[in-house]
């Protein structure tokens, strides 16, 4: 059975999606449980795969028994093994954590919501597990389409924001498809590792160059690297909160994974880093993304919108770290995919909890939240410290590797941008802490007794809090086990020859 894990990861949720949709008509309460079982199997398989990877190095699975380059091969190595586990864990935890708010927000539409949810996870996990460039496009579109639909289920200007996301997303995915087309022309293959074995002979070809450029452009749009980020803030702000705490941690991070996968495994480092000689320019692009994302975040007036801009800056971290093209930088980028996914989940879950109790997430609504929702805000503090980069939370350690990479590459602009962004994050998050902590002014002075403090306590239900606490504790655990993660997994994900 364990040899079929790669298939389980996507097939089980795919099938489950149809059952969920049907269950939505028959008995709505079943939807959640079907989804939970499907995602649990997916998570279990991912763990199983990672363990296999740790023992046997690489797991290759030929879909339907067809061997590549004719058939579709799923391939799990150190790089996607860990990303798989993280994505599956995030999808599962978020599912559990948002049960109550889904019931509250989607009353009638629970069935469609969970069907889309599980399909989104199918697509995302598929992107990570597949070893076939075209298959990746299809799964990318599955993830994107369900993502559009999930965001479109939101309130206010969700439909419009989602439609704009459709336009940008389609352009991005189509560029990627076009790039794959040129690679196919040049090599006659769609299997990533098959392409990689053919490419070195034709590195000088303009076709390969064009494929490289166009693929990368598409991916940059999909991952919302500044200045291709315009779709992200609106889409994330108006999206329903149970959906955004799934989409925000996964979409952009998985696209960064795809970039790393395509550039390291398909184009190979010698082409991406040496022949192209574009490293420094891309790092500067990332620097701009970090700086502009941070500054734009400062001018926002609502929690989710602010977090969206923080994420745009975080994308810059990963892209910049990767293009530093040294071992520390790439380690930092991969580590940050994992860490950023976890901390984004944490802060967006808190945003969801807040919206569960409070009418809106604009800063005015956050007054007195430390008193009202101490546990949620406690988790928010952990998430915020991680985003700022305070040890021993995980965000510090990825930043550590990124900055060391920047110093090693002599790219001080990137180092300065990271420090600048950390400082801006301090301002951003402490502004929220201040509002939640100080305001409303006055009325709680010299009350003295403890009873009055208890009165206003109204945190999210336990079912939402427990998973949130697990995530928050996970941020610290990820930080403390950074070295294990790096020495056991990530260092093998980086091909030799990069020093």
């Amino acid at each position, binding site marked *: 059975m364990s040899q079929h894990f790669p298939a389980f990861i996507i097939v089980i949720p795919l099938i489950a999606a149809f059952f969920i949709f049907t269950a939505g008509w028959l008995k709505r309460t079943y939807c959640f449980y079907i989804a939970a079982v499907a995602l649990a199997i997916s998570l279990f398989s991912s763990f199983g795969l990672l363990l296999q990877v740790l023992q046997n190095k690489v797991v290759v699975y030929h879909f339907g028994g067809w061997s590549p380059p004719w058939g579709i091969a799923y391939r799990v190595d150190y790089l996607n093994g860990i990303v798989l586990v993280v994505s599956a864990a995030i999808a599962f935890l978020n599912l559990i954590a948002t049960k109550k708010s889904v019931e509250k927000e989607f009353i009638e539409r629970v069935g469609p919501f969970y069907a889309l949810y599980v399909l989104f996870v199918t697509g995302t996990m598929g992107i990570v597990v597949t070893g076939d460039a075209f298959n990746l496009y299809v799964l990318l579109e599955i993830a994107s389409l369900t993502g559009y639909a999930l965001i479109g289920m939101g309130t206010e200007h969700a439909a419009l924001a989602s439609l704009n996301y459709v336009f940008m997303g389609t352009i991005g995915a189509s560029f990627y498809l076009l790039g794959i087309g040129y690679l196919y022309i040049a090599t006659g293959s769609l299997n990533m590792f098959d392409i990689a074995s053919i490419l070195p002979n034709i590195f000088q070809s303009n076709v390969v160059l064009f494929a490289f450029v166009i693929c990368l452009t598409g991916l940059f749009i999909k991952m919302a690297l500044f200045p291709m980020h315009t779709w992200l803030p609106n889409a994330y702000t108006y999206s329903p909160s149970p959906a955004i705490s799934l989409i925000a941690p996964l979409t952009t991070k998985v696209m960064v994974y795809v970039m790393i996968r395509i550039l390291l495994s398909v184009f190979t480092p010698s082409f991406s880093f040496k022949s192209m000689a574009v490293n420094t320019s891309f790092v500067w692009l990332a620097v701009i993304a970090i700086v502009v994302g941070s500054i734009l975040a400062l001018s926002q007036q609502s929690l989710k919108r602010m977090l969206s801009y923080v994420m745009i800056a975080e994308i810059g971290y990963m892209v910049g770290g990767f293009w530093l093209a040294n071992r520390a930088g790439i380690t930092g980028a991969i580590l940050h995919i994992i860490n950023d996914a976890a901390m984004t989940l944490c802060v967006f879950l808190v945003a969801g909890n807040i919206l569960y109790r409070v009418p809106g997430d604009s800063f005015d609504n956050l007054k007195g939240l430390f008193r009202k929702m101490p546990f949620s805000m406690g988790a928010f503090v952990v998430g915020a410290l991680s985003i700022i980069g305070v040890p*021993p939370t995980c965000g510090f350690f990825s930043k550590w590797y990124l900055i060391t990479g920047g110093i090693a590459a002599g790219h001080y602009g990137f180092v300065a941008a990271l420090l600048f962004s950390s400082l801006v994050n301090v301002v951003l998050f402490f502004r929220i802490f201040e509002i939640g902590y100080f305001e409303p002014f006055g009325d709680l002075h010299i009350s003295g007794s403890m009873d009055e403090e208890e009165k206003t306590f109204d945190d999210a239900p336990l079912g939402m809090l427990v998973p949130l606490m697990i995530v928050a504790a996970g941020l610290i655990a990820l930080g403390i086990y950074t070295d294990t993660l790096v020495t056991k997994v990530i260092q093998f994900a980086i091909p030799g020859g990069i020093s």
Partner: protein
Amino acid sequence: METIVSIRPFLAVLVSILAVPLIVSTRRTNFREGWTFFAAFAKFSIIASMTPVILDGVEIEYTIAQVLPSVAIKLKVDAFGMLFALVSSFLWIVTSAYSIGYMRRLKEHSQTRYFCYFALSLSATIGVAFSANLLTLYLFYEMLSFATYPLVTHHQDMEGRSSGRKYLLFIVGSSIGLVLPAMLFIYHMTGTLEFTQQGFIAGIVPPKLIWILVLLFVFGFAKAAVMPFHSWLPAAMVAPTPVSALLHAVAVVKVGVFCILRVLTGVFGTQLLFSSQMDTVVLYLASFTIIAASLVALSQDSLKSRLAYSTIGQLSYIILGAALLSPKGMIGGMMHIAMHAFGKITLFFCAGAIFVATGTKNISQMVGIGKRMPVTLSCFFIGSLSVIGIPPGGGFISKWYLILGTLEADQRFMLFILLSSSLLNAAYFLPIIYKAFFCTPEESLFENKIDEAPPWCLVPLTITAICSIFLFFYPEPFFSLAKIVSVGIFSGQ
């Protein structure tokens, strides 16, 4: 140097973190304070139990987690850390008692939160004291910054908010903006961050970068309040007085100084500092701060602000002592950590007691207060003696060694600075006491009737005052610890 592995340092750090859930979950206030006391005593006894071992010249190590290749979150107890940990954990017990009197009398809100963050701050302080490498030091340093934020802004009013902003801007801003890059740079160059007796970057880092790194660290650890990174400290005085007393006279500010000393000796090493002439730069920075802060203190009318500026000046004594790069100066600096702690905490306790009993914050309104609160003001006098450096105040010993250090290092100008600063100290403390006791009945603003602060306030400040005098006659174990540090650092030369 002999080393043993033991979990005790980790327990010493952990014990007050573990007290937090207990404090939160206890409904009755008496039990809640009971837990605080329990944690404080447990912490002190764990630390004290390690003292004999350290006095024998042995070091205790404990690795919490390996987080980066060649860098772990690791604790190591040596004489310097032990000295600092002893002072702060002992004073935590005293401050806990004082907090109870102060907070209950003023009917402060959110006392549970107050005691929780106090416990967290102490964990971080001991963590800094026992850090074995720069990363662990940074970790606990940041933890302390964030744990003290709710204490500084305890009153949750507009003033608290703006002070909180200033506090974070200076402390977190400088640690992320200056210390973090400096630390990463050193890690990049050397591949290690472990403190050693003689420093580890000599010969690896190019000399022209040394002075940048030294400045990054000296200013980056803004908790040490070296000018111009000092203005958070007077702002932080909006906190309740026990916070100002323990954190902003002992724990937080001394953590800053401790970090600077630790980095200067453990990372750069005295020989490198000497050869790159950075000692002179640090000396002048410190002496400027000493004189400027004392002058500003003269003009402060609010008692706590005056004490804050006095603290800023006294902190730089410690840095100056280390930067003299002479064994006696080093001993003086180390001793000053302990001596100033006992003296200054007494002064702050007195300021709080005056506020609790009369609601007065300003010095100009304290004329004749000695008649009303004789015990408090007598203790204030003892504390002042210690800070000024007049026998039988404990501060005399540390200043004596500092002065010997200036002679040993042949720094006449520093001798002049130290002496004139002591004069200034006397100038801003003694008039308060004079006016409090010796004034005509017409001038007195208070009725001639003894009405002291509650015993929970009064007893702790008496204890610290007695300790200040006691340390003059019997400065152990701090003196032996300081001597071990000094011998360890200078034996290689």
